[in-house]
């Protein structure tokens, strides 16, 4: 049985707990302690869409575990530009690598790739679909910096197109988190996803104002409003800059509130917040490494 990692929906709460627990053991290696756990193994990264941190943290995770990384290079100069199907590319790369990390422009690409692959596929984002490794590192950050039990969280920003928040909200429903969804009206979470969350027994409420919830939450998870996901640029202009986390806003927050952001940020978080006790987004970016180490080790059956 291959350990594909496609969607959070494929994970039970117990499986997530195991991953989070194991990730802690990888933190020293993520910080530089030598390891040869994946020595002799090769990871292929196939990014059909731009990515900085996801790709680099996968590469870091693989290399710090003693493994090697190969990549597709630029799409323009690859076989993709010649019209090769993703299914064929996956079949070919599967002959070179022990696992494939895939980011693609189309929803469902990773699920289809898994059907054609002889090695594990790790979904690093499929269009507006899933991004499970981001969700797992978000959960890990909450576990390390706050708590996953009795969690009260506000998820803020583009909840319509943002793929990370859909996966995150689903996963948090497994932890019975109390979620407040904060977004402009036109960027509310799609009904079908809210319905799924409620089916899981999640407690979900919606609002357009961040000020009304800031004093009653443990985690403020804010996301960038992604220009590239808007079919109509004028729609983007209407909502750009809707939310901004400032020191002023945080005056009303609980002392132990943490602010998270999947990054890159544009202007959602005032840089003055970086130095406050609330900021955890750079730690969050670091936690991507031990979490991805865990997933790579599990995918390549080193764990």
């Amino acid at each position, binding site marked *: 049985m291959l350990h594909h990692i496609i969607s959070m929906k494929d994970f039970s709460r117990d499986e997530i707990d195991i991953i989070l627990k194991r990730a802690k053991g990888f933190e020293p290696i993520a910080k530089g302690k030598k390891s040869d756990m994946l020595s002799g193994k090769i990871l292929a990264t196939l990014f059909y869409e731009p990515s900085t941190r996801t790709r680099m943290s996968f590469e870091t995770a693989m290399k710090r575990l003693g493994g090697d990384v190969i990549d597709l290079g630029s799409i323009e100069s690859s076989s993709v530009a010649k019209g090769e199907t993703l299914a064929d590319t996956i079949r070919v790369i599967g002959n070179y690598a022990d696992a494939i990390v895939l980011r693609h422009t*189309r*929803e469902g690409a990773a699920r*289809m790739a898994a059907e054609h692959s002889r090695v594990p596929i790790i979904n690093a984002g499929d269009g507006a*679909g899933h991004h499970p490794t981001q969700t797992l590192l978000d959960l890990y950050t909450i576990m390390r910096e706050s708590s996953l039990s009795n969690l009260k969280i506000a998820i803020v920003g583009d909840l319509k197109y943002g793929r990370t928040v859909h996966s995150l909200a689903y996963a948090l429903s497994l932890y019975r988190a109390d979620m407040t969804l904060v977004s402009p009206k036109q960027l509310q979470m799609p009904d079908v996803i809210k319905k799924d969350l409620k089916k899981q027994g999640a407690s979900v409420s919606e609002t357009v104002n961040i000020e009304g919830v800031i004093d009653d939450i443990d985690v403020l998870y804010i996301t960038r409003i992604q220009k590239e996901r808007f079919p109509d640029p004028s729609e983007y202009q209407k909502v750009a800059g809707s939310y901004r986390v400032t020191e002023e806003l945080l005056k009303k927050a609980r002392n132990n509130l943490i602010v998270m952001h999947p990054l890159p940020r544009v202007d959602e978080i005032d840089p003055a917040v970086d130095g406050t006790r609330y900021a955890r987004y750079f730690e969050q970016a670091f936690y991507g490494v031990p979490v991805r180490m865990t997933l790579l080790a599990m995918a390549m059956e080193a764990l």
Partner: protein
Amino acid sequence: MTESGANTDTFSTGSSKKEMRVRRIKHGTVIDHVTAGQALNVLRILGISGTTKAVVSVAMNVPSGVMGSKDIVKVEDRELEEEEVDRISLIAPNATINIIRDFEVIEKYKVDLPDSLEGVVKCDNPNCISNTNEPVTSKFIVNKKPVELRCIYCDHVISEGIAEHLI
């Protein structure tokens, strides 16, 4: 014969005057209790077009005691396969299938929605991987009440206008 016998000469019920709308068939399949207005979609699902050689009778908006009105499709010399029947249930959940041999109903059953569908419906998310030139067949997980199809690739849910998405 009355409506309760599917292979009848008439579709009128509760009327003393028997009208000969569609004749009985010797061999084949009678699809009864089709949701009114869906008969032509049933033909589409069965792949029956103007060029088909089979003898096909269609009755639309026939008065029905239970359904108010219904459509009926009779296809001669063809016994429907299970997969075809499953497809019909998407647009006519109350349809009954009657297999006829020598004018007798030898098998009768209600259509039943399957738990999953492969290659029957097209995902209506234009950005889904199943709507590309990739070698991939559409697959959906079926929720029966209400009828909702969830694409296994992109998670998109189709709940309305399912007939329009039939491949």
